């Protein structure tokens, strides 16, 4: 049964935030072309647009638009909030970052915005077509963003690698979707779940093949082992700001479609994908944490750590329940603040002509810049999962969810790997506080960067001390479906 929706102007109201952002994206290109002297307004225009969109998203009434293709529900709202938050933080730190590197490119902001629209579509996708559309809209601008440093070989390599890998992953995903369509005759995610029950497809080998292909494609997108090989190189090669953005925004959007497909589209196959994801989560934590141990570059270390964190975030999906999903969402919110904070400190370390991405760059930071070192300390302890930071609350919620889902051994594995992770996070703390600097460098912290760091600190510590509000909000939003 295919529903046909009559397109009226009122329907557009439901996608107003997306339309607004597209409008601003186009406007930014225009501003960049015609009033190049006023470029400093671009990030502010963008931040204002994102905040307006955020208010619209938070205030939107739950609705199913475009015949079920576009869902405005609590699930979409929480993920959209995370993606908007990630872009706001990125936009705020853009100006100081590009000043250091001297590469001022107006299209950067529009690319970021178009990617954001893609992420919002992914969060709202109620149909495999919209889901794929959003995914590609998110990914294409990011391929270009990764290659922003045109003259840096590493960057070009990263961009090409990311593009090829991304295209490959999209193909896998599309292949899986075509199987689903072939079996059920619909691309609407909710209908697929109903049809699997009514047509008793749950033991059909073709459906299992579809599941496998979808899982592989999704795991590529959120960098879950063994589909993570692109991550370290791309994260290391991309400009630090883009890496920071990629590690929080697109990853959250990836988890949005991950959850949407598995929880809403294939809940009957939970006994198949649950154990697979449990194994993949453990493998991801193992690969991320153990490989991070032997990195010499702080940026690459954070790249591996972000792989490991994808493994933790998977734990919430295992149960296939709203409660478990709430744990993943809560973790992604907290992860946004702590990971972006750590990357922001890394951006501060950079200077014109020197990227200073090695671990040694933070030697003796505490003596020169006690405040920045203290911030980094908080972010790193939060990434380790030590209370009273948000990282602990997030991890605890995930472990609880995984235990309730019936995976006690996965939980034990997760805590052991998080103990291993302590070693490499602590190494940075050790270098900052317990070693002397090789070459005394003074860092400059612009007001915008200061604001980003303050927001990240407030998020990391605030969510550690008073997480009740956030968790209630997420649980209520997810239960509202």
């Amino acid at each position, binding site marked *: 049964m295919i529903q046909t929706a009559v397109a009226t102007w009122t329907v557009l109201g439901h996608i107003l935030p997306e339309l607004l952002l597209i409008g601003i994206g186009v406007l930014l290109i225009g501003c960049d072309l015609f009033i190049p002297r006023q470029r400093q307004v671009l990030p502010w225009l963008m931040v204002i647009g994102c905040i307006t969109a955020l208010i619209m998203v938070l205030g939107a009434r739950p609705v199913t638009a475009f015949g079920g293709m576009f869902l405005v529900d609590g699930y979409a709202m929480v993920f959209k909030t995370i993606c908007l938050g990630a872009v706001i933080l990125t936009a705020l730190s853009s100006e100081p970052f590009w000043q250091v590197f001297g590469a001022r490119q107006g299209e950067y902001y529009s690319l970021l915005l178009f990617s954001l629209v893609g992420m919002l579509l992914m969060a709202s996708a109620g149909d495999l077509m919209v889901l794929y559309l959003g995914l590609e809209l998110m990914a294409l601008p990011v391929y270009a963003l990764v290659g922003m440093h045109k003259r840096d070989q590493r960057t070009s390599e990263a961009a090409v690698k990311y593009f090829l890998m991304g295209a490959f992953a999209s193909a896998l995903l599309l292949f899986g979707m075509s199987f689903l369509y072939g079996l059920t005759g619909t691309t609407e995610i909710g209908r697929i779940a109903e049809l699997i029950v009514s047509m008793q497809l749950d033991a059909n080998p073709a459906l299992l093949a579809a599941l496998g292909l979808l899982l592989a494609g999704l795991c590529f997108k959120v960098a879950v082992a063994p589909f993570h090989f692109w991550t370290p190189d791309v994260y290391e090669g991309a400009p630090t700001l883009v890496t920071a953005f990629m590690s929080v925004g697109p990853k959250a959007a990836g988890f949005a479609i991950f959850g949407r497909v598995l929880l809403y589209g294939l809940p009957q196959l939970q006994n198949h994908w649950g154990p697979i994801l449990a194994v993949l989560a453990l493998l991801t934590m193992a690969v991320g944490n153990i490989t991070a141990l032997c990195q010499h570059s702080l940026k690459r270390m954070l790249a591996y750590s972000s792989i490991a964190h994808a493994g933790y975030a998977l734990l919430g999906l295992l149960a296939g329940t709203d409660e478990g999903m*709430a744990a993943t969402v809560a973790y992604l919110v907290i992860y946004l603040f702590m990971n972006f904070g750590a990357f922001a400190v890394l951006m501060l370390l950079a200077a014109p002509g020197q990227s200073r991405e090695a671990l040694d760059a933070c030697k003796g930071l*505490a*003596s020169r810049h*006690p405040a920045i070192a203290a911030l980094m*300390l908080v972010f790193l*302890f939060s990434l380790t999962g*030590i*209370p*009273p930071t948000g990282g*602990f*609350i997030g991890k*605890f*919620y995930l*472990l*609880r969810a995984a*235990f*309730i889902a019936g995976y*006690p051994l996965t*939980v*034990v594995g997760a*805590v*052991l790997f*998080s*103990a291993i992770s*302590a*070693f490499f996070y*602590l190494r940075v*703390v*050790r270098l900052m*506080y*317990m070693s002397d600097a090789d070459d005394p460098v003074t860092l400059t912290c612009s007001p915008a960067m200061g604001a980003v760091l303050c927001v990240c600190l407030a998020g990391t510590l605030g969510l550690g001390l008073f*997480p*009740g509000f956030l*968790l*209630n909000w*997420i*649980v209520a939003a997810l239960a509202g479906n």
Partner: protein
Amino acid sequence: MSMPLLSILIFFPILGGLSLLCVSRQHIATIRTMALLVSLVELCLTLTLVLLFDRSTHEMQFVEQSPWIPALHVNYSLGIDGISILFLLLTALIIVLSVLVSWESIGSKVAEFFIAMLLLEGAMMGVFCATDCILFYIFWEAMLIPMFLIIGIWGGPNRIYATIKFFLYTLVGSLLMLVGIIILYEYGGRTFDIRQLAEQAYPLKLQLVLFWAFFAAFAVKVPMWPVHTWLPDAHTEAPTAGSVILAGVLIKMGAYGFLRFSLPILPDATQQMALPMLVLSVIAIVYGAIICLAQTDLKRLIAYSSVSHMGFVTLGLFVLNQRGLEGSILQMINHGIVTGALFLAVGMVYKRTHTREIAAYGGLASVMPVYAGFFLLLTLAAVGLPGTNGFIGEFLILLGGFECQPWSAVIAASSLILGAWYMLWLYQRIFFGAVKAEMVGLAQLSPREIITLAPMAILILWIGLYPNGLLSFLHVPVAHLLNQVHGAGLSGAALLPGVAPLP
């Protein structure tokens, strides 16, 4: 109580510590004075609590409860009983003395040091006050951060190795405890409240799993043999104040954890596992004492003596009778005082000589007579001479041991001889004999140093002569605790594992 006294107790040092951030970093004298003031006010607060405390009930007092994370069923619930109040008092006292002993010995990053110390104090207070598992865990782990920094930044030459070892050992143990807490939550009716969890009966197999999960955290912290190896490194490399806090309070938390979690919540498993625990305790007692004889480093020797003394504490815990438990808790306080004071004393002499090698010392008694007097008292208390507090604790533990498993008491008692051997030998090597050339002309103890040691000396004699002052706090809660252990499930004291029927 209308005043949230316990919250004040926890957050006053934290806020006090953070207020040091407002002081300009050049005004070191102001920073020190403020830190001292904060710790003194905290001590006064604790004393107020002691005066208001009702000794006749085992119920939690000064209870505070409010929902904290409703989505996870975590409450902000605090409360203390007769057991925890003694530790609060000990903590407050130790911190005051640690501030005093760090007055001049900490030269760099002074503000950071005192901030770390006061944050640590707040977290330690929180551990002893929390009656919600997750709140307890949060304070328990939060302690790690300041302690990691204290050892790692202001410690000795090998500090980085020591502090990372300390951090990782403790973290692995704690994380396993976190898994245990989550399991307990699932099977205990979805609550994290320690009292509610203790009221329920769990199947024996589950209890055993949980017992070992909690054991991982607590045994590392105590530390019990064979997971004690972080302790000598951490104690040796930490700055004086760090060693004092470690020995005085931090390692007591392991035993406190056994008292709060393992005994009341997992009574059957505790009885089943009492025998292995006694064996581990006795090994720790004898092993620690023998290792002490071979040490050439002053702080390392005291660190290993801690292993031995904490063996007595766990022995007292797992004999599971009134005398043993009371003795064990008292011995924790005693050990905090005596070993804390020994580290203070060692710190004072280290500041003058800059060596911890025992062989470098000699004839100190004629150079620093007042110091020698204090050290003698501490040595005798560590050995357990009647009249000092060490005697009371060890004697009670041994009595308890004879009632339950005589062999354990016999072996433990015989190792007291080893204790006397290594401590008196240490005293002889340092204070008697010919005066070494480097020892000539060392400064006498300053009034500030005497003020630092005097409270410890007074406490040693006071507890030694009138132990009931502290024991009176313990009678009721310990009796209640034993009811919880013996009341449920298996009857009688500590059955052998093989005898107990498996479900």
